[in-house]
């Protein structure tokens, strides 16, 4: 992702000049008009120049990597970001110090970064984009602890033959447990409630 701000007699000329400077292809460029400019009488006399911000896209994983790296740098964190495209999802991995701060309580900061990155990619690419961010193996650890919890509760439910409602969880966390217990023939698993009140229920079969 290369970004440049450029002025010109009109929007078109400003964009052309910008693309020339960063040797970018117009088809890969996202243009934001900062100022339309105004043609003056007799050419430029009395007119104002147009100003544009041109971003040349380099591909979703590359652009996402740079956006996240910029954000983490500005957060004052020393990190390195890697990225790859898996199906249509951009997967980003953060390495460095202070991983706890990047992950946040129950992954809240990671989640927030994902939401922002998805918004930024949607703006650049004009389509919905899926982003997942991992740091210090958090995703795997989280999945393992959720699966452990699910197994414990499932065992209780089987012993007591009484259904149990899980604590509030994000849709992603509910999904992990759902997939994990799906193969268990002794319990049924379903969600009930809407919005913030949605909870997983594990019931004996």
């Amino acid at each position, binding site marked *: 992702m290369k970004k440049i701000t450029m002025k010109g007699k009109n929007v078109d000329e400003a964009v052309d000049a910008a693309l020339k400077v960063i040797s970018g292809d117009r088809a890969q460029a996202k243009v934001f008009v900062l100022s339309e400019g105004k043609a003056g009488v007799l050419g430029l006399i009395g007119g104002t120049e147009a100003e544009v911000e041109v971003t040349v896209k380099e591909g979703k994983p590359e652009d996402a990597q740079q956006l996240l790296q910029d954000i983490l740098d500005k957060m004052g964190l020393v990190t390195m970001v890697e990225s790859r495209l898996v199906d249509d999802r951009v997967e980003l991995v953060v390495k460095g110090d202070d991983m706890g701060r990047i992950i946040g309580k129950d992954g809240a900061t990671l989640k*927030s970064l994902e939401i922002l990155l998805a*918004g*930024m990619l949607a703006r650049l690419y004009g389509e919905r984009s899926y982003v997942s961010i991992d740091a210090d193996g958090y995703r795997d650890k989280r999945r393992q602890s959720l699966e452990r919890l699910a197994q414990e509760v499932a065992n209780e439910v089987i012993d007591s033959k009484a259904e149990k409602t899980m604590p509030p969880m994000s849709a992603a966390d509910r999904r992990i447990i759902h997939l994990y217990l799906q193969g268990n023939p002794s319990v049924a698993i379903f969600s009930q409630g809407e919005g913030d009140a949605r909870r997983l229920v594990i019931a004996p079969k």
Partner: protein
Amino acid sequence: MKELVEYIVKALVDNPSKVEIKETSGESVIIIEVKAAPEDVGKVIGREGRIANAIRAIAKAVAAKQNKKVSVEILTEDKAQNKTI
């Protein structure tokens, strides 16, 4: 902090030149005010405030490092303000 929020907001809107960020910093509190073009405010807030809350969470993570509290306020245009009473 201002630079961080400015970078994030400008990367979300269609009119980056209309984004204005004001930072007021006290001993233990930082207040960030975000102004954007009326048609962009929705992009900064997001569905059910998802984007705004994500910006707040990032700001909070940074402020916590300095043992400060942070408040990120997204200012809406007059029209919207009248509606919220």
